[in-house]
């Protein structure tokens, strides 16, 4: 049987007859779930979301229902909901589709989630580089307001909630939830230390705050429509629902694909059409630039459900949270960057290290200094000026960043550096020894 997409969130997005206006959304049953929701008890909706097993699509895969349970409801302070549409992890472009092609689906998800958590003011934090997305959202919110889906007395109930679209200003660290909150407060986006600053307790204005990714919240109306039990039948245990994978790089058909219950091989070979003509897959970044790289020819070790050990190939990795974790990496933001045998792996590493060096907020010494030092070293290792000890120093230094910083971004230098070296050491060593100017076959990957 051919492998196909399971489109739930993107069901209408690419239909040429489907528009981003309210009428288009209502024609396909839009806002029916919000109407139903305001007649339910908030805690019943929360239970339904918990039972659906919905896991966060922003990076960490934390169960959405559990996150909502952690909200401090006794403080008497207002509760805020923030939608994370900062979408900046290299390789990720799914939230862009959801916002630009079906904005009302997101707004319905936001309003149901807001109602379920007694939120009276929600924010959508969208990166500056999506100016049209911000306009589309604002327009959709006004349309929804005119119909009583946003604002005062939603769907004729006593419940009221507004949404503010807040624009970022080009800093990746605003994707990290506490950095995002600081920037929403009008400050530099320096992430806060946890504990004590868990958003669920001490978030925006020191009030309980929920931060969820765009894709996470777009699932909410569907869960309500289908019911948790039916929703759980999509995907597999602990990995319920669909996921939108963003495939980029050297593959026949890059793009965004919403799938469930398939393997990594099925995504890259069947859906994306395999490698470019005459090429072979070499390495895959499975979950955004900061995730650990995988070799395409690698054999992974795992255990079957009955406990017997078994080996599996890259193609056999189940394409979901737990599947990619079992191969030693993470599914992160669902961003798959494919590299074929034309790529100089050292240059690819240097490219990503430059990203994280540019985006470190500068608050912690290990991340600020370490990422810049790693950038310097990886660049000279590409440029024919490697020093004798660079490789060892780079590896050891990178190992001293992650886990010693305020936010998890420290790992964004540690993981790529260490995994690229672990998996491609001979190639990287040869490159540093040869002392030649680095160059991938098709394209230059770093600044000269």
């Amino acid at each position: 049987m051919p492998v196909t997409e399971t489109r739930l969130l993107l069901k209408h997005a690419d239909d040429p007859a489907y528009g981003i206006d309210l009428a288009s959304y209502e024609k396909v049953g839009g806002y029916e779930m919000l109407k139903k929701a305001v007649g339910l008890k908030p805690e019943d909706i929360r239970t339904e979301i918990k039972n659906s097993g919905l896991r966060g699509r922003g990076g960490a895969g934390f169960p959405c229902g559990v996150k909502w349970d952690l909200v401090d409801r006794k403080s008497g302070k207002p509760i805020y909901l923030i939608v994370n549409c900062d979408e900046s992890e290299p390789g990720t472009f799914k939230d862009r589709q959801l916002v630009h092609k079906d904005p009302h689906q997101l707004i319905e998800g936001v309003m149901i989630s807001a109602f379920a958590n007694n939120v009276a003011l929600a924010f959508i934090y969208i990166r500056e580089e999506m100016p049209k997305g911000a306009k589309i959202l604002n327009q959709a919110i006004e349309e929804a307001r005119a119909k009583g889906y946003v604002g005062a007395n939603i769907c004729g109930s006593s419940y009221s909630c507004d949404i503010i679209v807040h624009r970022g200003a080009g800093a990746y660290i605003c994707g990290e939830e506490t950095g995002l909150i600081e920037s929403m407060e009008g400050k530099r986006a320096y992430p806060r230390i946890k504990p004590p600053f868990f958003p669920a307790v001490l978030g925006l204005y020191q009030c309980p705050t929920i931060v969820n990714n765009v894709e996470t919240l777009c699932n909410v109306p569907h869960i309500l429509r289908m019911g948790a039990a039916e929703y759980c039948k999509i995907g597999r245990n602990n990995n319920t629902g669909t996921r939108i994978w963003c495939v980029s790089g050297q593959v026949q058909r890059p793009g965004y694909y919403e799938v469930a219950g398939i393997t990594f091989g099925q995504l890259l070979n069947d859906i994306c059409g395999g490698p470019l003509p005459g090429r072979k897959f070499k390495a895959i970044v499975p979950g955004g630039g900061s995730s650990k790289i995988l070799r395409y020819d690698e054999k992974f070790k795992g255990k079957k459900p009955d406990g017997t050990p078994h080996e599996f190939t890259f193609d056999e990795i189940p394409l979901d949270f737990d599947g990619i974790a079992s191969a030693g990496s993470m599914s992160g933001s669902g961003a798959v960057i494919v590299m074929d045998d034309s790529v100089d792996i050292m240059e690819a590493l240097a490219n990503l290290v430059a990203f994280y060096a540019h985006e470190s907020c500068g608050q912690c010494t290990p991340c600020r200094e370490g990422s810049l030092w790693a950038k310097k070293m990886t660049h000279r290792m590409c440029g024919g000026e490697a020093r004798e000890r660079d490789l060892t120093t780079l590896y050891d230094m990178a190992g001293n960043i992650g886990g010693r910083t305020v936010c998890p971004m420290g790992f964004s230098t540690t993981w790529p550096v260490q995994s690229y070296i672990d998996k491609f050491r001979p190639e990287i060593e040869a490159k540093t020894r040869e002392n030649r100017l680095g160059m991938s076959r098709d394209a230059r990957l770093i600044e000269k």
Partner: protein
Amino acid sequence: MAFQLKPETVEKIDRMIARYPQKRSALMMVLHEIQEEKRVISNEAIEWVAARLELQPINVLEVVTFFPSYRQKPIGKVWVRVCRTLSCALMGGYKTGEILEKELGCKMGHTSDDGSVTLEYAECLAACGTGPVALVDEDLFENLTPDKLGPVIAEIKKRAAGGTPTPTKN
């Protein structure tokens, strides 16, 4: 001359401030409005914003200097940002950047002498599946391999010369 904004911009800013539970929260949005009108955040603008939000100028300055999108030097009439991050680079993003440099007569990371174009590399623009990509003002141009640069160069030159932008989707 004292710092002045168009009355409609001031009105928009005041409406925005009123929506936030705390005034300071509107800071980023206010800065966006000002930069859109002036193409720069000047010292006078910083003082104006501070007064409007009941902050000290340093509170505004530290935000302006933290976020790459805010500029203390004027942005050219057309703002071109070419993605240099991995997915785009794999498809030839740097080559695209070099050709644009030549064609537009503007060095990467600079504004052309006549102030018409600002050309820069940017980090991942969240459109990696159609790389290389570039953001020209508010418009995203995709699949910008070296052989497909004709239309985007023409559009940039047209805008730089004062022509109205051709509508695009995205």
